[in-house]
């Protein structure tokens, strides 16, 4: 009997979540952005080293799905970038919260969790990243907006420890992008 109740609760939870995702999501946008990263420091072996310098660049293509009647949107996409160990492809999942909207300007805060691969022949390694920061958007007409964002980003490739001593970086990315409403 309890098991039956529990299954029903799971089904109900799934229905609620699916409803949230399918019914209340609206206003899809596509985001294309490029960025360069100012590095703050890195981890060498187990030591944190503060050493500012250019740390990489990349391009991101993503989908932004707003939740109806909510300042929250869900972002998913893919980015190709290079870091100290070489090139990488990361898949991003993020959430964005609109703090302030005035005329064509919108200021938001975003948090991203990225997972993917550092690109090496024969032995591709896991790479992951977390990023948090502000995002400024300027609308031009109904469908197009420019975006300027920054933040703090931590990227690590733990498997690279075997080949080189520097296996993670902490950076400040400066990102320029274009958002297109579909």
């Amino acid at each position: 009997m309890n098991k039956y109740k529990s299954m029903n609760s799971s089904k109900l939870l799934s229905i609620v979540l699916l409803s949230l995702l399918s019914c209340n999501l609206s206003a899809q946008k596509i985001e294309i952005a490029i960025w360069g990263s100012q590095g703050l420091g890195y981890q060498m072996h187990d030591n944190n080293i503060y050493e500012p310098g250019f740390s990489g660049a990349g391009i991101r293509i993503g989908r932004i799905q707003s939740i109806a009647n909510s300042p929250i949107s869900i972002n998913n996409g893919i980015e190709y970038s290079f870091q100290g160990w070489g090139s990488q492809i990361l898949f991003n999942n993020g959430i964005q919260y609109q703090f302030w909207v005035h005329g064509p300007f919108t200021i938001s805060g975003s948090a991203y969790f990225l997972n993917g691969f550092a690109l090496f022949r024969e032995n591709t390694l896991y790479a992951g990243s977390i990023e948090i920061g502000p995002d400024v958007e300027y609308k031009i007409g109904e469908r197009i907006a420019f975006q300027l964002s920054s933040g703090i980003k931590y990227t690590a490739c733990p498997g690279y420890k075997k080949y080189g001593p520097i296996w993670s970086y902490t950076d400040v990315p400066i990102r320029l992008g274009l958002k297109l409403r579909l």
Partner: protein
Amino acid sequence: MLFASGCSYLPEVQNLSDTVHVEENRDYIIITPNREWYSMTGLVFYPGGNVDPHSYVEALSRFAVSGLMHQIVIVKMPANLAILNAEKGKWIYDDFSYVKRWVLAGHSLGGVSACRLVHEYPSFFFGLALLAAYPQESSDINWWSQTVLSIRGEHDALVSEDELDSNANFLPPAIKINTLEEFPMNQDSKTVYYTIPGGNHAYFGQYGDQKGDGEATITREKQIKELVNILQLWFDAYNWDE
């Protein structure tokens, strides 16, 4: 396409002796002989395209402790592609001010980028060593007054002897040698060409076999030994160890 073009070769395990000290920062891998005094001429090295820079540490460590010992700096490149920042080596005098003279070297695409750096900053370097590489027409340095050393492996299928010959007019006039005993002394404004018998493209570093490369008939160990020997002869010929 991005995946294929962005994949780098990982280094094999590097066996380092305790005669050198290897340190690293965001921009460089620095190999320093473990003794109080060493040559005032350093070697700055550009790695091959899509090759992890650690792949050259063991080979260059051996050169670091040959002769009167040298400081070696391997430049780390964005996305492991030297062509994306060919001029990065120009900061070497600022970042290592205690080294009096610098000689530049590059493997494969790193060599192509090294030629571009010499083309832009000809007075910065006292010599240029090209390992399986040649300049592009836009980096023509046939007017350069310093010495150039061009080395390739006999079975290199990625950079053929014909390619080197047909691009030789972008380098100072050629002197071809067949054995190390023929190595000329003090040949400024000349390019000395040497082919390592039995060698190939990938054996200048330690990153496994390279796609499209020929099969070497000597060991990697032997090719690295030949490389160290000719680099030392070159340094001796110019008294750079003094």
